[in-house]
């Protein structure tokens, strides 16, 4: 049994890089990423699990980092938008104008990347189910839907490339 009280050392693999950070048990993953690791791509929106702007991948699963204690993630792999540089989904959002102000975009891309990894073939119902997790107040969602189609079409034109895992791309 592990008991943590006060400041403790936390080991994470963030965007493929081993990181060690001092945290208190009450700190959320979102706060630790932004304020202690300087990764400000995950946005602090509602801090209530509603908006999805703070979405990151925890061991490959998209989660809202405002609802995760950092200490729960000891030894886990975290992927933030900074780790998806030039990822096909990121390129697709740019190509399809799947953003306007950009505040929600990191969360949208992290969720979309996990969606396409899990479901390489398009399925409107599944896409809708997954992407309803992220709110956007600018685009009307059409550009985001287009971005999914562009990403599935493949940056290099192959299905394998579209379906490659986030971790593979790091």
């Amino acid at each position, binding site marked *: *049994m592990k008991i943590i*009280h006060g400041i403790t050392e936390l080991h994470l693999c963030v965007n493929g890089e081993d990181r060690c950070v001092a945290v208190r048990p*009450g700190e959320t993953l979102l706060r630790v990423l932004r304020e202690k690791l300087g990764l400000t791509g995950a946005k602090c929106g509602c*801090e*209530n699990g509603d908006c999805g702007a703070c979405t990151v991948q925890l061991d490959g699963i998209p989660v*809202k980092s405002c609802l995760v204690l950092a200490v*729960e993630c000891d030894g886990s792999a975290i992927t933030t938008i900074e780790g998806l540089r030039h990822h096909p989904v990121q390129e697709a959002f740019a190509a399809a104008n799947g953003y306007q102000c950009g505040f929600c975009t990191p969360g949208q891309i992290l969720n979309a990347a996990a969606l396409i990894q899990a479901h390489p073939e398009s399925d409107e119902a599944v896409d809708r189910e997954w992407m309803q997790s992220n709110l956007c107040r600018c685009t009307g969602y059409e550009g985001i839907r287009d971005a999914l189609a562009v990403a599935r079409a493949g940056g290099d034109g192959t299905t394998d490339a579209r379906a490659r895992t986030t971790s593979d791309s790091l």
Partner: protein
Amino acid sequence: MICADIHYVRPDTAEEAVEAWRRLPGARYLAGGTEILSSARRTAAYELRACIDIKRIPETVRHEIREGRIHLGAALALSDVAEGEAFPLLNAVLRGIADRTVRNRLTLGGNVAGLLPYREAVLPLLLADATVLTLAPGAEDAPPVRRERRLRDVFDKRLVLAPGELLLSFSVPMEATEWPWSHQRRTRTSVVDYPLATTALVRDGEAIRFAVTGVHPYPFRSDAIDAALTEGVQTGAPLTLGGVESILEALGALRADSRGSAEYRAALVKKMILTSLEELA
């Protein structure tokens, strides 16, 4: 973000978790954390002093079929449970709760035992006569007590457990997962919203079982409603739902809020029942 200087405990066994609860005043069991974290940030309702993370206790993450029953750990994420093929009604209900990335964290036990009034995940479990496995602290220095009881015996508007009693898992007879079923969920606006009403209805031979949430400040299954619906089906008489409405009202004041009035909810539930019965006819 929890501003208080809390303890975080990660036990490897259920016994360690219960012992930690005894030793740490103000401790709460933590699984998905979706309710604890949002509540701790928003209000002072939680006098949270310690989180006991139960996700690494093997019994809380079991997901298996054994001896004619499906066993579902309380710390399984809703999206993981919903991926299973063994209990289609449960899958359908779980897919209506919150949104996908929240369901990647929100757990089965957390939803059933949560503070929010809806607790939709309990509906299929009530209909299937699930049992619930818990571990309760023993008196003083006595060892903790493992208990398996019918869910309906410990769910009276909410899950009623002893202080410190740890919810480990649910168990459902496989035959109950094969009954014809109907699930309906109505919200005011978008799909991702709290429900005006969520209903689940199964047909076990000639017997109808029905459970609902959203209409009252708690979910329930009523023997009186089951009997009224079953009688209507068995006699083949045109179904009048005046009796059902009376029973709904007798169970307590219907919810009325910005999403819908009490009258609207009552009418909605009657319509949902009729639709479900037509689906299963």
